[in-house]
């Protein structure tokens, strides 16, 4: 067994350490990118607004499911319950606050909002390129193949390693999947582009890159399995969906969220699914959507 050692906290605070916190944004983060990416968003929020991130990767059942070929031993409702307990224990479920979820974090955030009673509920839920866990948007296991996943992987790898939007291929005209069902020829293109652009460290090999990709794919499949087993209920609060210029899906439909809320508005940001958490103008728009309205001064 792995030796016991302190794990990072599930809830991590960013932001306004200089003064009293008069409002807050709570974030559900699904991993893939480090939680430290939210430091930029915290700086974009108004003074006095704190930002606290629930990092699902610090929940062992969730983290391990991506290491174990997508074998899932938890559920979205259990993850949401855990998040609520952690936030409640820290006294963070007091108004004014808004909830924000990027990618799969928005799905868990939606379930979390539905668990809270009236006094604890957020003002609204801001969804950053999240795909609703509803029929038509939950994929079959076979549908999450290399042709879908590899362009997303390139976005992910470029964002994680500090590369620009053109650092890695955006599409694979000949298809990402080879005749043997493997994506090695396409990964070879990614490898060369990554080495040329500096996204990958010199000396990185195809077997090494293949492992990064396979683990990314396991994470996608884990989240899809969790979504497939989830039965969402309308959360009864305003939803704001922000979509980047290059999101996961190109559909004009609001990614299935209209099924789960009557009060849904949609906005847009620069960047792609991953870089929207770093791109300055995207952060400005996300902060504007997520910041709670100030509480009027007494008297």
């Amino acid at each position, binding site marked *: *067994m*792995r*030796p016991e*050692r302190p794990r990072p906290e599930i809830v991590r605070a960013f932001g306004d350490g200089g003064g009293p916190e008069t409002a807050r944004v709570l974030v559900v983060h699904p991993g893939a990118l*480090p939680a430290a990416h939210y430091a930029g968003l915290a700086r974009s929020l108004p003074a006095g607004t704190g930002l606290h991130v629930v990092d699902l990767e610090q929940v062992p059942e969730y983290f*391990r499911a991506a*290491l*174990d*070929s997508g074998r899932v031993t938890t559920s979205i409702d259990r993850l949401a319950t855990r998040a609520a307990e952690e936030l409640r224990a820290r006294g963070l479920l007091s108004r004014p606050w808004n909830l924000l979820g990027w990618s799969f974090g928005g799905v868990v955030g939606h379930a979390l909002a539905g668990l809270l009673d009236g006094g604890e509920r957020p003002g609204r839920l801001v969804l950053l390129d999240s795909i609703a866990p509803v029929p038509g948007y939950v994929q079959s296991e076979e549908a999450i193949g290399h042709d879908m996943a590899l362009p997303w992987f390139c976005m992910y*790898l470029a964002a*994680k*390693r500090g590369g620009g939007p053109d650092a890695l291929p955006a599409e694979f005209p000949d298809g990402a999947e080879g005749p043997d069902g493997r994506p090695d020829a396409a990964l*070879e293109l990614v*490898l*060369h582009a990554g080495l040329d652009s500096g996204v990958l*460290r010199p*000396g*990185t*090999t*195809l*077997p*090494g*890159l*293949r*492992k*990064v990709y396979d*683990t990314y794919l*396991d994470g996608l499949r884990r989240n899809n399995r969790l979504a497939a087993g989830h039965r969402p209920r309308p959360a009864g609060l305003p939803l704001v969906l922000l979509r980047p210029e290059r999101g996961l899906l190109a559909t004009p439909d609001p990614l299935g969220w209209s099924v789960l809320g009557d009060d849904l508005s949609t906005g847009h940001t620069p960047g792609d699914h991953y870089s929207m958490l770093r791109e300055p103008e995207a952060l400005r728009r996300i902060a504007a959507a997520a910041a709670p309205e100030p509480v009027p001064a007494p008297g």
Partner: protein
Amino acid sequence: MSDTPSAQTARTAAEPLTAEAVQQWLLEKVAHKLGVAPAEVDPEQYFDEFDLDSTEALVLSGELEDWLGFELETTALWYHPTIAQLALYIAEKQAEHAA
């Protein structure tokens, strides 16, 4: 081909897979990635305490599998989180298969 092992790292099937050999391979790989001498890498240090991000750790894992010639459970680095522990685990696993 970019995935052809170098002469320095190539392993032949006849070469015995000892914990020492795996540990030496890992020490050299981690040292190369960190830009330090292998002697400066502590085999008892947790992988996630090296100055390698999670992408680099996965690249290392994939390259290790390529050198070994067989796949490891992706949880291997989780349950055996130091160079010394992982090397011992791999040698024991290989010995079980060979028995």
